[in-house]
């Protein structure tokens, strides 16, 4: 029997990884269309249409309520995120670079990782009162272990060959950190920042719901008591849009800049 002859015409050049930039927003548009269809099929008191939610959002914006509560939540997220990243990076790097310190602190880190966020929030409100300090501290304590674990792995993966290089050429501590260590840690920092932002704003909402008199969490609590689903979705949507904006305007450009050298054709 004769063997099938391979058809050379079937060989094609590998497809490019480039994606049409208009496609990712189309995915979100698809989500909106599904939402619209579902809202029209179901009871609109349970799931209002996107249009109804946008109208609520507009009304909240016009009254000044939206900016007031969004501003309060963003301030808490900003302070908690900065503190959690700073402390988490320092603790994680210290543990990753010092095996003895790692063995000493590892049980504590595992305990903190598994401590429920709600327990920390309630305890701090009891101990420190319903204060801003307790709210921010509760968020920071919840996030620091996640950042520390990620950065500990990053510090462990630092290339020892580059350590020898900086030793031989006597590269100063600051340049060593900025030009040799941090670029190696960049993927880990990005993971910690991305997951940190996503986790922190969710914890901030719980903190506000339980013990603050302003912020998106507080408004969600009010809307829940009044069974106001458009309000719940309007505030959620506003915050999701802001986080998406941070992702597109800050995190993704930074990631592209950090990964530029990985392109084979990079010049």
């Amino acid at each position, binding site marked *: 029997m004769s063997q099938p002859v391979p058809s050379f015409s079937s060989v094609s050049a590998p497809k490019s990884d480039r994606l049409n930039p208009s496609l990712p927003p189309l995915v979100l548009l698809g989500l909106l269309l599904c939402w619209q269809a579902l809202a029209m099929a179901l009871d609109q008191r349970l799931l209002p249409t996107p249009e109804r939610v946008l109208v609520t959002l507009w009304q909240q914006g016009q009254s000044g309520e939206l900016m007031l509560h969004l501003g309060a939540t963003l301030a808490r997220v900003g302070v908690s995120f900065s503190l959690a990243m700073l402390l988490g990076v320092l603790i994680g790097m210290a543990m*990753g*670079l010092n*095996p003895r310190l790692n063995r000493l602190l590892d049980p504590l880190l595992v305990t903190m990782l598994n401590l429920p966020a709600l327990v920390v929030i309630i305890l701090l409100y009891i101990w420190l009162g319903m204060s801003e300090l307790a709210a921010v501290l509760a968020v920071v304590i919840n996030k620091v272990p996640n950042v520390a674990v990620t950065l500990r792995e990053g510090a*462990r993966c630092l290339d020892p060959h580059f*350590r020898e290089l900086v030793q031989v*050429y006597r*590269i100063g501590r600051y340049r060593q950190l900025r*030009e040799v260590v941090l670029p190696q840690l960049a993927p880990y920092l990005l993971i910690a920042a991305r997951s940190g932002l996503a986790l922190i704003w969710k914890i901030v909402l719980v903190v506000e719901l339980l013990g603050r008199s302003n912020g998106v969490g507080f408004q969600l609590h009010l809307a829940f008591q009044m069974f106001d689903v458009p309000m719940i979705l309007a505030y959620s949507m506003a915050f999701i849009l802001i986080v998406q904006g941070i992702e597109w305007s800050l995190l993704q450009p930074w990631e592209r800049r950090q990964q530029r050298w990985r392109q084979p054709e990079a010049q």
Partner: protein
Amino acid sequence: MIQLRIDRKQYAGQTLFENFELQLQPGELLCLLGPSGCGKTTLLNLIAGIDKRFDGQLGWSAGSDPAAQAKTISYMFQQPRLLPWRTVSQNLALVIEPDQHYRIAPLLAQMGLAERADSYPNSLSLGMARRVALARCLIVEPELILMDEPFVSLDPPTAQEMRQQLQQIRQLRPQTSILFVTHDVREALTLADRILLLGGTPTQVLHRWCGPLEPSQRDAAFLAEQEPRLLDHYRLVATEGDDTNRSGQDRRSAENRAEPWRIASG
């Protein structure tokens, strides 16, 4: 003159060096030849200050101030060790001060790398990456260059081109000393002013070779005469090592064991 005296150097509970001495004259190219695991790379690491765990002394010519020797040693590792996230010129800039950046462009031009100044290392061939690593060695204007099998794994024409480039560099910088580790007897005979054949347990100099200083005198006839003799010595040391120095590979793996990072001052 650079002097290294090792009273004792241990690895994995075994004595690697004992009462070992090494001297290097200004402008000299000294080649260390020997079987795997005999401690050639360890010697380079001790001199570079990467490994400080030994009993003994490392010094430059008598009376010199150790602080004044800052940045006078450079090291060409077996792998180029270029930072992949920095361009070729940025890799060179890393090891010098900002007020010395004017050295980069002329040096890259001299090494035939001017066109690749803004390229990232992953777009370079191994030969080009090695040339960048050599340029990084030279940009600090060192008094001593340590080279650990710098031309290994290169295709023969590229390796030959780089050897010629090294000879040109020696002519341009006659005061720069080079300590060169290789397994290649012919390469050693082509480049070295002096060759030390290392072996035994603990490691010692088992054979010394000193050749004519002029590279022009090292023609095919010279190599045909010298290479078999040196190869005989090398085979003897390597065979002896097989019988008495079984732990060589263990020592190599101990040497290569990664230590955790310390962000220490330079």
